[in-house]
């Protein structure tokens, strides 16, 4: 039986390959990425 369900998330490792267009934050990890 399947005991682990992986939720779809953005892969941070792949995102290594920073446009800076996202909104300034004051939250940091909450805002959507502008360019995707």
């Amino acid at each position: 039986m399947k005991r682990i369900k992986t939720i779809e998330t953005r892969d941070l490792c792949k995102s290594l390959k920073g446009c800076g267009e996202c909104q300034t934050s004051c939250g940091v990890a909450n805002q959507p990425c502008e360019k995707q």
Partner: protein
Amino acid sequence: MHHQYKLDGYNIVLDTCSGAVHLVDDVAYDIIGMYQDHTPDQICHTILEKYADRPDVTKEEVLACLEDVEALKAEHKLFTPDTYEPVAATYKNNSDVVKALCLHVAHTCNLNCEYCFASQGKYQGERALMSFEVGKQALDFLVAHSGSRRNLEVDFFGGEPLMNWQVVKDLVAYARSLEPIHNKNFRFTLTTNGVLLDDEVIDFCNREMHNVVLSLDGRKEVHDRFRKDYAGRGSYDTIVPNFQRFVAKRGDKSYYMRGTYTHYNTDFTKDIFYMADLGFTELSMEPVVCDPADPCALTEEDLPILMEQYEILAREMLRRHREGRPFTFYHYILDLKNGPCIYKRISGCGSGTEYMAVTPWGELFPCHQFVGDPKYSLGNIWEGVKNKEAQDEFRACNAYARPECQDCWAKLYCSGGCAANSYHATGSIQGVYAYGCELFKKRIECAIMLQVAMEQEPEA
């Protein structure tokens, strides 16, 4: 590095460096917890002993689950190694771009809130209003230093920015005139106490302001305890109808109610639910940051109460979501699929580098919470940043800057935390505001749980 926790019936495993989130059953939860410092034989033995009364937990099942864990590790979705530190050390050195300014258009206020970090809007200085000429120069400074960035942000702040309303409107018009010339997109925000909100202000804001932040602390007695006018009268009865009218006309444009909770209302979820019941659906409630000797300061004894409050909040949000009357909470807005890249998560808010505050006199500070502190005066909008030493302190702020954060699972969510909170709590922007860390981690746990729970909801 990973973090696993149980909350409200959900067993959640977070892989810190890939951002992966897994929902697991009790057996997998225990296996993952043992995986890094036990052999497969030890894990099998322990699990089979613990779940001896469970017919579905056989040796084959445990081994199959171990294989799944191995596969996730191979796919870099679990126990992913941390390779970001070298990037963190250099990322902010590669750019002198400025993309956001907080314009202090009014160092004065029509309220006299006792807990105000800005000393009733004066920032330990004289009352002042920003002139159009200073504001115009600030916008020119921003465009000139924005490099290839297209999206620029300007926040009208105070004090109370509506006390300098004509200048706000004139600066918006000037910025709009710059957009086609320089291929820029200005996003304006406004933070207001609501006293001077009228239909003209509301209509202008609904046309021009990307977001508005409306200060309301919740229940009338809570709000009026601190948010009084200079005659000592509470402001609740004045502002709530104004805010309700504003939000009703706002349509689908962004806003949020921004409250502050203190030692006097550690049951702050009651204030959040109260605001939701008033018809406000975009909500934020922040812990007061002040001198620990202040009677309204949060105490160590308050901490477990606050932690429980955040769990109560998550449960109620889920309940209302299921009932079709949802509201959002600022710190629980977590976009797992389309959230920020690793560079944003490492570098944080950009205070002192890509984001600065401008006083009515055109002086630059790292952010609104440093305004008035001569140590952190960075320069001015005519000559730019001259205090490179102070700016370099901020350039060095990132998720990897503090030894205390090395093993923290939440560092790619907090990005090293708020420099102002660190400074006010420890005297150094490189310090660690441990109390804030505990609250932050609890909020992230709740936010991820909410996302996971909503993911499990059947499609309507």
